[in-house]
């Protein structure tokens, strides 16, 4: 069975290459900061399970320190000029889309064909991680297709990958750091405390109030925690189950489903959902790191209100 550890080794080697190439990049005044940052990420992927908890903690402090004290620059690997790219675009034509579209095709094949495959009762891919394994496989195949079809230099995947990685910069590690913060929040019981505050202070005698508190609470809690999955157990244990389902007799499927989607409205509005909201802003080179969130709020707010109405109408048929 192919497990996630295979992906981690691959990622570790790729980040190690980013680190080494960063160190030799004389166009970047902070090249050793970049080398140290991506080097630590590489170490985490390759040896994270052998560093011990304290070792990993120190590694995280190192990452936060490099980013926080502005030691991270932006590498300038030699690449093609805008004029050259225009000419190449003319020459290659629609062939250029093939490597990029190889990604979704291989991911889809992985999920639909490779995931169910078994040899002697043992699945080929670890079923829990089939999507990420497929994505890594797709990334490798697509690089091969790109190099051959577009006749690019063999070092270009690593240099160009480093260019994009430096574009994202510290924001790249934020989603993983926030996931770790979520674990600390859980350890300290932050969720239960917020849930208790909500249920203690807001009267929920009327059905509509209770529905509104649950939906808005899911969104608000998701904004604070950055993740609807963290909000769901707390809000559902505090309001959804005892009040909406047990007291008012709401349909559990409707309450849970629309409750979760109310949380997703919160995800659209929080910088703590960094992989959806802040990483894209960095990747698209937007000067305002909150630009994507600002575009999402006008859809998220009316949709949240629509969820309150939907739950009120559909859960108590």
């Amino acid at each position: 069975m192919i497990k996630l550890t295979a992906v981690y080794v691959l990622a570790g080697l790729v980040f190690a290459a980013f680190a080494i190439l960063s160190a030799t990049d004389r166009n970047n005044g902070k090249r050793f900061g970049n080398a140290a940052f991506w080097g630590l990420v590489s170490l985490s992927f390759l040896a994270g399970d052998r560093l011990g908890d304290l070792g990993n903690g120190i590694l995280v402090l190192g990452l936060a320190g490099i980013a926080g004290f502005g030691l991270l620059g932006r590498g300038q690997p030699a690449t093609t000029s805008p004029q050259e790219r225009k000419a190449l675009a003319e020459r290659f034509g629609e062939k250029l889309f093939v490597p990029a579209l190889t990604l979704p095709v291989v991911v889809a094949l992985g999920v639909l064909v490779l995931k169910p495959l078994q040899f002697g009762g043992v699945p080929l891919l670890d079923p829990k991680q089939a999507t990420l394994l497929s994505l890594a496989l797709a990334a490798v195949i697509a690089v091969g297709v790109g190099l051959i079809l577009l006749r690019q230099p063999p070092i270009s995947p690593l240099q160009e990958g480093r260019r994009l990685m430096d574009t994202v910069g510290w924001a790249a590690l934020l989603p993983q750091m926030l996931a770790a913060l979520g674990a600390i929040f859980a350890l300290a019981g932050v969720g239960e405390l917020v849930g208790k505050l909500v249920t203690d202070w807001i009267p929920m005698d009327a059905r509509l109030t209770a529905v509104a508190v649950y939906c808005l609470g899911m969104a608000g809690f998701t904004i604070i925690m950055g993740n609807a999955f963290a909000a769901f157990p707390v809000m559902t244990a505090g309001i959804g189950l005892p009040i909406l389902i047990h007291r008012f007799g709401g349909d559990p499927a409707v309450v849970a489903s629309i409750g979760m989607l109310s949380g997703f409205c919160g995800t659209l509005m929080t910088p703590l959902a960094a992989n959806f909201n802040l990483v894209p802003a960095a990747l698209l080179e937007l000067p305002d790191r909150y630009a994507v969130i600002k575009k999402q709020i006008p859809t998220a707010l009316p949709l949240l209100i629509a969820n309150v109405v939907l739950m009120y109408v559909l859960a108590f048929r």
Partner: protein
Amino acid sequence: MLTLLGVATVVVGFAVRLNPLLVVTLAAFVTGLAAGLSPVEVLEAFGKAFNENRFVSAAYLVLPVIGVVERAGLQERARSLIARFRGVSVGPFLIGYLAFRQLTSALGLTSIAGHAQSIRPMVAPMAEGAVEMRTGRPLDPETRQDTRAMASATDNIGLFFGEDIFIAIGSILLMVGFLATSGIVIDPIHLSLWAIPTALIAFVLHAGRLILFDRRLRRRAGA
């Protein structure tokens, strides 16, 4: 109550735009210390959780191939390709992408698109190209940034309000598991079905906003 200081740290730190990696680290210590852990215990718990969540960062493996195709001119090609379809405006183009993202996510194919693998190399340049073709001149920086941000927002909205229609997605499994421990046994298909009304409203709302966005850009270009 003291444990909520960690939440406050995050809110204030993000609001004043300190480096988020520092803010998050600080918030972890504030929360952990308030909950009675020693500094070393906090560091250990934080390091352990960081290590367990490495899969979150493994998705950057798609960047090398995206860089290679950019080097060979994919963004430029995407831009000129859309210009050949004279009738395509940015609003309908992004509405089409929204529908594609919602439908494929509803089939469980959430990872076939995304900000790194489709928005940056193809969708955003195409959206920019569609705007450029209407106005007949290169975009000003503000319009360019607006168009890119809207393309990313459309990807998120399509993903979030499509994926919950697929019965084997993480959030559905979480709900089934949570309700089961509370004595309520539910077939995941019911949770999927009740995600459809919200999905439809999300599509209508965001599609309407994309049409308004398109009109606003046209007015801006005309002014």
